C-alpha cells in the first residue's frame, strides 16, 4: 500500500514530492500514470489517485483498532494461562506477557482424567462427525449435481431445510425416541448434514467439466467409480473446506451436549468451558486438587485448550477463502 511505497521511496532517496511537473503538456492519463508511478504500486490502477494522508491515517487507525480488539483478548488469555503466581498477584489477575512462563495451570487441569476425557469426547465427535458428514454431503451433492431421476424433488427437499427448522423440542423428542440420549451419537448424527455445505459442494461439482464424466461413462465406469476416481480428486479444495467447516462446527457445538448429555464423563470441551469458566463452577473441587494455582489461570488454560485446535486448523481453512471456493457458491 502507499505507506509501504513511501517507505520504499524514502530508502531509494526519491523525493516524495514534486510529482507532475512534466505532465502538463502530455494528456491526462499519462500524467496520472506518472503520478502513480512515483508512489509505485503494481496493484494500483492508473486512474486511481493515491489517498490523502489524513484518509490514510484514519484507515490505519481503524484497521489497527479492529486488529487489536481481536488479538488482545486472545493474547491476554494465553499469557495469563502461562503466567506464574507471583506475576499474577502483582498484576492483579491479568498479564499481557508472562515474564516467567510456566505450565502449572495446564498441569493442574490435566492432573485428573477429567480434562483428558473431555478432550477425547470432543476429538471423537469431531473426527467421526466430520467423516460421516463429508460422506453424506458428498454423495448427496454429487447425486443432485446432474439431472438424474428424482434429482429435482430431492434437491428441493434439501433446499427447504434452509427456510424452515423443525424446532428444538421436536428434535429433542426425536433424538430421545431414537435412543441416542446420553450417547456420543446424539452429538454426531444431528449435525452430519448441512444444507449450506451441501450448496457449496454441489455448485463446485457442477462446475467440473462434464466431458470428463462423460468419457469415463463411455469407458464403462459407474457413478460411484466416477465420483471416487474422477470427481473427488478434482475437488480436493472444496472437500477440504467443507470438511474443515464441519470439523469446526462439531468442535464448537455446545448446546447439543447440554441438551442431550447428562453424564459428566461424556461432556465435550465446550461444555466444560461453559460450566467452569462462563458459569464459574468450582474447578479445583471437580479436579480434586488441594493446592491449585489461581482459578483465573486455570480457567484461562481451559479457554486455551478449547481455542488451540481452532487456531491450529485456521491457517488451512484460511488458505481457501481467497480462492473463492465459498464465495463462488454464494454468488451462484
Amino acid at each position: 500500500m502507499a505507506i509501504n511505497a513511501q517507505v520504499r521511496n524514502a530508502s531509494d532517496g526519491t523525493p516524495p514530492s514534486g510529482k507532475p511537473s512534466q505532465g502538463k503538456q502530455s494528456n491526462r492519463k499519462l500524467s496520472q500514470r506518472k503520478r502513480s508511478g512515483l508512489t509505485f504500486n503494481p496493484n494500483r490502477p492508473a486512474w486511481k489517485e493515491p489517498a490523502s494522508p489524513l484518509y490514510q491515517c484514519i484507515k490505519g487507525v481503524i484497521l489497527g483498532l479492529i486488529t487489536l480488539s481481536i488479538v488482545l483478548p486472545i493474547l491476554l488469555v494465553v499469557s495469563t494461562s502461562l503466567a506464574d503466581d507471583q506475576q499474577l498477584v502483582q498484576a492483579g489477575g491479568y498479564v499481557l506477557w508472562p515474564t516467567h512462563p510456566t505450565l502449572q495451570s495446564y498441569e493442574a487441569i490435566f492432573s485428573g482424567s477429567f480434562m483428558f476425557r473431555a478432550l477425547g469426547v470432543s476429538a471423537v465427535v469431531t473426527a467421526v462427525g466430520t467423516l460421516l458428514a463429508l460422506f453424506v454431503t458428498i454423495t448427496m451433492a454429487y447425486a443432485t449435481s446432474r439431472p438424474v431421476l428424482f434429482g429435482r424433488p430431492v434437491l428441493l427437499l434439501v433446499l427447504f431445510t434452509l427456510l424452515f427448522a423443525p424446532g428444538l423440542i421436536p428434535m429433542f423428542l426425536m433424538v430421545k425416541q431414537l435412543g441416542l440420549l446420553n450417547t456420543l451419537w446424539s452429538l454426531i448424527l444431528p449435525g452430519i448434514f448441512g444444507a449450506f455445505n451441501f450448496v457449496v459442494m454441489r455448485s463446485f461439482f457442477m462446475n467440473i467439466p462434464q466431458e470428463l464424466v462423460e468419457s469415463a461413462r463411455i469407458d464403462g465406469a459407474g457413478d460411484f467409480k466416477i465420483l471416487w476416481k474422477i470427481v473427488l480428486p478434482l475437488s480436493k479444495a472444496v472437500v477440504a473446506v467443507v470438511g474443515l467447516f464441519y470439523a469446526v462446527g462439531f468442535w464448537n457445538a455446545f448446546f447439543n451436549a447440554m441438551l442431550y448429555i447428562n453424564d459428566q464423563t461424556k461432556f465435550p470441551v465446550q461444555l466444560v468451558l461453559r460450566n467452569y469458566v462462563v458459569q464459574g463452577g468450582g474447578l479445583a473441587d471437580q479436579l480434586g486438587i488441594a493446592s491449585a494455582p489461581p482459578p483465573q489461570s486455570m480457567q484461562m488454560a481451559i479457554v486455551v485448550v478449547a481455542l488451540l485446535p481452532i487456531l491450529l486448523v485456521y491457517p488451512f481453512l484460511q488458505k481457501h477463502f481467497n480462492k473463492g471456493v465459498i464465495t463462488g457458491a454464494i454468488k451462484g
Partner: protein
Amino acid sequence: MISTTSEERQAPSRPYCVASRPPGKPLGARKARKSAAGRQSLRVRWKRDRQMLLMMVPGLVFLLLFFYIPILGNVIAFQDYQPFLGILNSDWVGLQNFVDLYFDPDFWVALRNTLVLALWQLVLFFPVPLGLALIVDSLMSTKIRRWFQSIVYLPHFLSWVLVIALFQQVLGGAGLVNNELRQLGLGAIPFMTNPDTFPLLATVQLVWKDAGWAMIIFLASLASIDGSLYEAAATDGAGRWRRMWHITLPGLRSIIVLLLILRIGDILSVGFEQFLLQHDAVGPGASEVLDTFTYFAGVVGGGWSMGAAAGLAKGVVGAILIFAANKVAHRMGEPGIFSKKVG
C-alpha cells in the same frame, strides 16, 4: 443462495444421447435432452441412474430422521403432550397451547427482547461488514489485506462459549478492564451483567464475532464490479466519493437487498447460544429470547407442548416473513433469494 435456476439451466446434461447431440451447440442440446428424457421410460432411467439414486440414500435418511419427521413432531403443539404417553396417546387440545402462550407474560417479554435485539442488530451490526469491506477493498497492498482478512475472519470460527468467556475475561466483573478501573480507584462497571445495556453488549459481541466474516460476501461482490466503470468515471473527473456513490454502492445494491431480506426473514432468530450462556448473568428480563424461551419452557420446565407451540409459531412467522420480504425484493426489481421458477 437458494436460487439455483440459473445453475440448473447451465447444468451440463448427462449423456442421454451422446451421438445425436451436436458438439458445441448447447442451446439445441438442451432441447434435445428434454425431449429425449421425456421419451425414456422410467425403467430405463431407473436403470441408468440407480447408482446415483443409491448415493441419495444417506442424505435422504438424514433428512427424514432429523428434519422431516421432527417437523411432523410439531403436532405436539396441538396436544397436551405427556412424555410417558407419547405422541400417539397424548390428548389433543386444539389451539389451547397458543392461547396459553398469548396469556403468558414471559412469552411477550421474550418476543419483545427478540425484536429489540433484532433491531439493534439491524442498525449496529448490518452496516459494519459493508464498511469493513469498503476499507479492505481500498487496500492496495495484498500483504496487509491478507493479514487483516485472516485476523478478522478468525472470531467467526470461535464458539459462542469461547467468545463469552473471552468477553468475561476482558469486560467481566473480575475482568481486565474492571481490574484496571479498580486499581485507578474508580468503581467497576458491570458491563456483562447490566440488563439495561445488554442489547448493546450482545450486539457488540455479535459484531466482534461475525462482522469480519460477513464482510466476505461484500468483498466478493465488490470484486465483481467492472473495473472499467471506475476507470471511465475517473477519466470523467469523478473523485473517490463520487465513484463510491455512483458505482460501488449501486453495484452492491443486489447483495445488500438480498442480505436484508435474509435478515428480515430471520428476524425472530437473533441467536440462541449467546443468550442461553448469558441467561444467568443478565437475567431473563433482558436476555430471554424466543429460542431460549422455548428451551426453558419446554425442556427445562417440562411444558413440552407449550415450548413446541412457541417454536412452531416462530418458525411459521419466520417463513411468512421471508416469503414476504422476497416478494418485496421482486417488486423492487431485485432477484431476491428464490424465484418462482424453482418450484
